[in-house]
């Protein structure tokens, strides 16, 4: 187990370091294969650790510490990895899906001038994410948290000549930094009370903290999760992050990094259970986000942005799941979402690649006729996303809705939101599908589409898409609660589902039926509006404008935060920095000159003057001596 865990963690790092050190000695292709190999080696390590844990007597999880990283008095942090059911699940997802995506990038990024830098960054990202999920204590988790934020910044701004990409990278980083800060604050509170950041000790401490303290800790952690997972109100960075290359969007902003928030809540659930209100607030945020994102996705015209809002929405589902206490359900949806969302992004990437970087869906009409494999792959992903049986999403999404349903009146509201969201998901997803794929190819498509040696794309891109298509279909079959739930059982030692979140069979059935029905309704409406074109899209200009402006969040943040800060900065510069600080240098110089000029007037060169000073000095000294004695 130990070997597997360490191998998994460090293999991608070795890949990064080799690519960086190798520089131009590696060809661009070689760098890509090196990165891919390192991530697949990590996957092998993850499998190894998983199998070992499975066959071990106790599934509780073991922490292996390599050495003491830092020590300050009683406070000790070791460089340790935790091998337990939750972490091995995440390791498999991250390394597995990550490996497929890195393989895909070899084909997608082929020909780019800075390919090596890309592969160094992306294996560094995989390393950081694995550090996050494997970290044996909260500090390593925070370290991984920060490093994935860094990798995300580096990869979003990969095409750094584009000002939009650079701006998006900065936006992502700054918003994530807010989350990092709140997380750090909650870690401080934990250190203050328990002098340790080991998982076990911290969770025990949470039982003894005052309600205020534990609520603060939970709020801080929730803040970090909200920022990293792009939930309201810290969500505006995710659509902009689509400026990065498509594999980056697939890996970081669909499958792994943005799900780190869900993982965090599941991992630190004992703390959240002590601060149940905060946990339910998290669920509420998730519900709100899934509705808002779904609505915004209805009017987007950029294919990647539609999928990004879909991601935001689905993570909202996961937040609802872990928020009500159904950790296993949330993690299950995380897993299936990784499969079908990465698939959707990669299929979109095939389209974009074929149409020479065109991303506007209105221009892509009818491409399904020319790229059938992509069409079927996309359809599989879309059906999984909407939650149609027997595709993967059906099993995971419905269990979340069911779990929420069980949990008193608040949960019913959450479940209702989830059901509305299911309708919206069907609507926007199949809007996308019906606009892009069916029908006659437009003139644009015919002109610009270039095939790759007669195929729809290079093999390195097609193979991962194929694998993920299969997973999107069968990936959900691992759990069909309440009949068959090996995943919940697997996670039980670490993240047991709360009793309030255990739905009855009846509730499960109701939730499933309703969700499927609403999903089909959404597909139907989308077909009517966009597929057949019979019914015109309703014209509601005010609503359309609001949705197109993404509920004016960006404008609000601009007015609330950016403009005051900019005004303050410029006022500080004009009123404080320039007159006080910058002028100090020349002013000091001028002052010295003036003093010199003044003193110079005493140097008359006249003997009389000097004697006068003598006399005056004598008089003054005499006074002093007389007065003071």
């Amino acid at each position, binding site marked *: 187990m130990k070997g597997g865990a360490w191998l998994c963690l460090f293999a991608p790092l070795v890949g990064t370091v080799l690519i960086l050190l190798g520089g131009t000695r590696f060809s661009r292709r070689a760098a890509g294969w090196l990165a891919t190999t390192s991530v697949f080696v990590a996957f092998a390590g993850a499998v190894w650790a998983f199998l070992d844990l499975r066959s071990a007597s106790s599934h509780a999880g073991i922490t292996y510490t390599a050495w003491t990283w830092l020590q300050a008095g009683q406070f000790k942090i070791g460089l340790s990895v935790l091998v337990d059911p939750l972490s091995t699940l995440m390791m498999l997802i991250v390394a597995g899906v990550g490996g497929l995506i890195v393989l895909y990038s070899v084909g997608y990024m082929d020909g780019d001038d800075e390919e090596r830098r890309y592969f160094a960054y992306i294996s560094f990202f995989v390393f950081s994410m694995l550090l996050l999920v494997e970290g044996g204590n909260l500090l390593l988790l925070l370290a991984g948290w920060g490093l994935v934020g860094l990798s995300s910044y580096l990869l979003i701004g990969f095409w750094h000549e584009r000002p939009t990409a650079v701006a998006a990278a900065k936006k992502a980083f700054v918003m994530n930094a807010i989350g990092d800060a709140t997380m750090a604050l909650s870690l401080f509170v934990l250190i203050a009370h328990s002098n340790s950041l080991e998982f076990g000790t911290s969770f025990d401490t949470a039982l003894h903290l005052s309600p205020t303290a534990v609520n603060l800790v939970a709020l801080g952690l929730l803040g970090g999760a909200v920022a990293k997972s792009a939930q309201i109100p810290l969500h505006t960075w995710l659509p902009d992050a689509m400026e990065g290359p498509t594999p980056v969007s697939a890996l970081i902003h669909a499958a792994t990094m943005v799900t780190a928030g869900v993982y965090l809540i599941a991992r630190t659930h004992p703390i959240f259970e002590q601060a149940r209100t905060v946990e339910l607030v998290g669920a509420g945020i998730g519900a709100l986000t899934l509705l808002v994102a779904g609505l915004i996705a209805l009017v987007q015209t950029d294919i990647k942005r539609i999928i990004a809002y879909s991601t935001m929405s689905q993570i909202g589902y996961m937040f609802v799941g872990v928020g009500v206490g159904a950790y296993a359900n949330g993690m299950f949806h995380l897993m299936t979402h990784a499969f079908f969302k990465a698939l959707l992004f990669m299929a979109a990437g095939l389209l974009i690649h074929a149409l020479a970087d065109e991303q506007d869906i209105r221009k892509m009409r009818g491409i399904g006729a020319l790229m059938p494999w992509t069409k079927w792959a996309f359809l599989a992903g879309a059906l999984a996303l909407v939650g149609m049986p027997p595709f993967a999403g059906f099993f995971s999404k419905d269990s979340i809705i069911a779990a929420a349903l069980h949990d008193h009146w608040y949960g019913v509201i959450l479940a209702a939101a989830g059901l509305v969201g299911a309708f919206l998901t069907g609507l926007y997803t199949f809007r996308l599908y019906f606009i892009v794929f069916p029908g006659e190819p437009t003139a644009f498509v015919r002109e610009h589409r270039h095939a790759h040696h007669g195929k729809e794309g290079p093999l390195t891109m097609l193979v991962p898409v194929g694998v993920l298509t299969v997973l999107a279909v069968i990936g959900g079959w691992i759990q069909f609660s309440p009949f068959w739930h090996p995943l919940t059982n697997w996670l039980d030692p670490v993240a047991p589902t709360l009793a309030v979140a255990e739905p009855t069979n009846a509730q499960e059935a109701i939730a499933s039926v309703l969700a499927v029905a609403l999903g089909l309704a959404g597909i139907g409406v989308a077909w009517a509006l966009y597929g057949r074109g019979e019914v015109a899209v309703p014209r509601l200009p005010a609503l359309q404008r609001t949705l197109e402006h993404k509920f004016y969040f960006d404008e609000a943040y601009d007015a609330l935060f950016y403009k005051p800060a900019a005004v303050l900065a410029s006022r500080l510069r004009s009123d404080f920095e320039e007159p006080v600080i910058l002028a100090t240098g020349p002013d000091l110089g001028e002052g010295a000159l003036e003093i010199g000029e003044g003193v110079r007037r005493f140097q008359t060169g006249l003997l009389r003057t000097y004697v*006068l000073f003598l*006399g*005056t000095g004598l*008089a003054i000294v*005499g006074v002093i001596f007389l007065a003071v004695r």
Partner: protein
Amino acid sequence: MIVASTGNVIVWIVWVGAGFACLASGIAVVSFSNPFYSALALIGNLGSLAVLYLLLSAEFVAAAQVLVYAGAVMVMFLFVIAYVGPRMETPWAGGPTWQSVGAVLAAGAIFVEIIVAVALKAGGRLSHSDHVNRTFGTPGWIGRLFLTDHLLAFEITSIVLLIAAVGGVILGAHTRRTA
């Protein structure tokens, strides 16, 4: 405490006269524009000072004052003034400059401070001086002191005079023109 005896009255009259002359000649020295008149005023000052010394039982010092100061130093002054020629100078013309105002203030301050210092420190002890014996201030007494208690002062004085003489000669010598 003025005791009205004949000796006392005479001493008082002499003191007032000599003191007045002293003060007046002092002011005259700094006020005349013609240096010749200033030198003459200084001679008067030295003479009145000699009288005051006599009143203070310092006969030898009084004699030395007249011989050395008035006799030698002032003659030297008059020689040089005559050699340099008349240089008239009006110190108070042109209105009060900051130099002159400062000088008056400083001088006034010094005067006041000395008075205050002496008054504070001495208190009432200065009002009465004891009697001295007849040998106080006589040349023999001074000479004995020079050769016993204050021998060092005596010797160093002679060296200082030598140095002054040498310096004077060097300063006054004609500079040799380089050929």
